[in-house]
């Protein structure tokens, strides 16, 4: 339910994606060993974050990012480095 609820919505958006990510997880061990409920996975409005239970790491689909900046505050361990895409890259709202 949730993934289709967000995928269709992101499909409406225009992006100019950079080849390099503007988001990184500072330390994957923190996600694997300390973070219990993965709020970034639940709360990111663009489903940028998914938890890979096999590899035990947080996957980052930076191409989805709509640049709200919430993840930096949501992460209880301040373990997400989300800065802005380079000039002109990222999401480009048509309505806003």
């Amino acid at each position, binding site marked *: 339910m949730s993934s289709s609820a967000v995928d269709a*919505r992101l499909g*409406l958006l225009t992006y100019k994606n950079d080849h390099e990510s503007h988001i990184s997880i500072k330390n994957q061990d923190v996600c694997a060993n300390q973070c219990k409920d993965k709020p970034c996975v639940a709360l990111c*409005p*663009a489903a940028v974050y998914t938890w890979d239970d096999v590899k035990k790491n947080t996957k980052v689909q930076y191409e989805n990012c709509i640049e709200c900046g919430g993840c*930096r505050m949501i992460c209880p361990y301040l373990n997400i480095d989300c800065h*802005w895409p*380079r*000039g002109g890259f990222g999401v*480009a709202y048509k309505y806003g």
Partner: protein
Amino acid sequence: MPDDIFDAVIVGAGPAGSACALTAAAGGANVALLERGEYPGAKNVQGAVLYAKHLDAVVPQFWKDPSFPGERNITEQRVVVTSGREDWINFSFRGGRYKTEPPNCFTIIRTKFDQWFAKKAEEKGAQLFTGVTVSEPIRTNGSVKGVKTSDAEELNAHCVVACDGVNSLIAQKLGVIDEWKMDEVAMGVKEVLAIPKEKIDDRFALEGNEGLTIEFFGSISQGMIGYAFLYTNKESLSLGVGAKLSDLRRKMIKPYDLLDFVKTHPLISRLIKDAKPLEYSAHLIPEGGLHSMPPLYGDGFLIAGDAAQMVNPTHREGSNLAMTAGHLAGQTIVEAKKNNDFSKSALAAYERKIKASYVWPDLWEHRNVEKNVEKDPSILEVYPRLLCEAMYHHFTADDRPKKEHKKETMKMFLKERGLFKMIQDAWRLRDAIG
């Protein structure tokens, strides 16, 4: 990038930045307006209702400009209080006086507005640079003297104005704010929905360019501090919902699931029937208010708009505060140029202007509203439910005399909330209304 030294580099071409650039340039200052999006508005999200008075101060008689991208003039404003999924109460005010030009407020499509506004600043001589992300301010002897961009270029200036929004990188790098805490911001998610003009007019009882806004409170926010909104544009509806980030965290509700919860509400689903989604967006809204406001000026810098937490959430105002602050920052730059003094003491004039305007008193009056609600968030759920129950008793005819219905309503209020608690609630919420 030009090598000359600007009087001001203004970061962010939103309402604060463009107002600042326009006013400063019109007063003879040499200003650069930087925007990280491909065009102004590319990164910006708003409901969006804009207030005319404060735009008029920056662009006099803007409504007479044929290129002005206003949507509908708001003539009616409605509040809907919801209880559960099936009960709701409507309060609506339609003001005949709102029909005259200029309107009190009007809806806009933010990206169109931001492009128009930045163009107005350019017409006054401001230099707009799009696709430029600032990486950090340049400091010389403790004073801010320009910015570095993510492409490692430098722009030199006598001062820098941070109008870079809720996630103000400039303010963070200047060390005047830390990361916001989750209870200092709300997350809003929104859709723009296409629907023919005639359907909007019929569905909302509007004519010509009249517009309606609706804010939904109560069960719609699932116990979180927040509300949903539905605004009429010319040929689209803006539907969104916002809640404190700390509340979303506590409830672990996905923002787009909350949006679906809103869209499927029996009243809202009827109002948006057959409307086709054009765009989905999400943005943070600063809601810390005066308690979270950073220092507004320093040696060679000023801060305006969302970057300075200038939002009055109980009145859904923010972009007007930003325009006013940008305008006042622009005036301050013109004066600083005239006196050739961009020091901290010279730029302090900006804060004095803010305090003398409506911005400061409004933020002061509302500084504790959200904190007071947070002390007992059940207010958000209990009163909508009790009000709907009271309405139910008022309108229901059965075998019992009206007197008994009244008695039962009174008993219900006293049992569920109690006299003391109700007085306390009224006291806590006193600044929210008015």
